[in-house]
């Protein structure tokens, strides 16, 4: 397959959250606002890229029996490094996101891609896959975060949207996360069914 498709697949056709159903936990937990979603997405993209590269590099040395512990150690190491560097050199960013960085270790997308893709593909392919999946994840998080911020706190990027309007607070809490996620999933599937029907009719 063409190299660019590796990237674009992760954006929509194989979006990690919408299609693969991975990373739902952070997707629900941190998307109380668009900025939080963006920050988490970028941090995940970085860790995903580093881990995919390293896993692809050592894939021939690691036997099947110990691959899971090895991958997890690799991922956790990168996340810890990101956390240390942020605490030391990016205090403003750490203030905004510091809470979410350790959560990246439990993000299934990273282990999932390491196992399903990086362990069996070349360095370049793994890199492109990581960029695609990470970007798709970030995009979805920003969308979900924006939706929940507007409906649950009447704000977007921290600024009030409609002055004086009392927001639907439940959208900023856990139930709202599920509701918003379900809504987006439903919308996407409806769109897919529609295009499938249209192409079937066309043929």
């Amino acid at each position, binding site marked *: 397959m063409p190299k660019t498709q590796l990237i674009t697949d992760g954006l929509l056709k194989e979006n990690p959250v919408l299609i693969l159903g991975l990373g739902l936990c952070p997707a629900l937990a941190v998307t109380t606002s668009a900025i939080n979603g963006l920050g988490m997405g970028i941090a995940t993209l970085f860790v995903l890229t580093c881990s995919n590269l390293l896993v692809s590099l050592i894939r021939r*040395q690691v036997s099947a029996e110990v691959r899971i512990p090895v991958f997890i150690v690799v991922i956790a190491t990168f996340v810890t490094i990101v956390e240390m560097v942020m605490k030391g050199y990016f205090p403003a960013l750490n203030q905004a996101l510091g809470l979410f960085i350790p959560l990246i270790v439990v993000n299934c997308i990273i282990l999932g891609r390491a196992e399903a893709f990086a362990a069996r593909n070349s360095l370049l392919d793994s890199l492109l896959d990581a960029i695609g999946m990470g970007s798709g994840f970030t995009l979805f998080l920003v969308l979900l975060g924006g939706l929940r911020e507007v409906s649950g706190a009447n704000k977007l990027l921290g600024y009030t949207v409609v002055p004086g309007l009392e927001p639907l607070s439940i959208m900023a809490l856990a139930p709202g996360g599920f509701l918003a996620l379900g809504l987006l999933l439903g919308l996407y599937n409806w769109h897919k069914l529609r295009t499938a029907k249209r192409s079937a009719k066309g043929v």
Partner: protein
Amino acid sequence: MSSPTPVMRSVLTLTTVACAAATCLFFCHAATQGAVEKQQQAALLEALRLVLPMAAPAELVERGAGEERYWRWQRDGQILGYAYLAAAPAYSSVLRFMVGVDAEGAIVGLRVLYQAETPGLGARMQEAASHRTLWQAIVGTGEGGETGAPARPWFELMFEGLRPGTVIAIRRDREWTGLSDDERAALRAANAVTAISGATISTRAACDAVRQGFERIQAREAEQE
């Protein structure tokens, strides 16, 4: 030795990876530790400057250790006030504050150093009131557009003037941002704060932290005499 069995190879691989990871983290930690401590110290000094703006850094004498540190503000042998670290467990995290009080025991300033409460609820204690709408922010009109200076969180401003030596009452009917100046003065006179709507536990923890910290430094200072 014969060629390593599959089991031995697995053990070897795992051990190598673990050792490599540990080494990597050791060096990374060593490299960033200095910067991390500098950031924490800078944050502490910044908080001190905010809660006791009238005090020169040389006039603040650090006492105590670790999380029970407090600073005596003295000038020419006279004690003008204190600043202390306060902490208390709230809903989903342990809150950390820096509180500045004057010689009479009234709060001069409060700074939230750390909180990890629910965004939209307890985390609003670090929210700075802005009355601009999204459109105004894009166009660049409305307050804050000219000076660009970040406003102080209303939660911190709310504590100024209160006396942590006595109980701080919590009102739950309206929020501080919606009160008039007179109503705020009345609240201050009654040694009360308003709770963050939907985040009573966080608010109560904040009051507890401020009060317990104050009692602690009172006890320490009494010991000295």
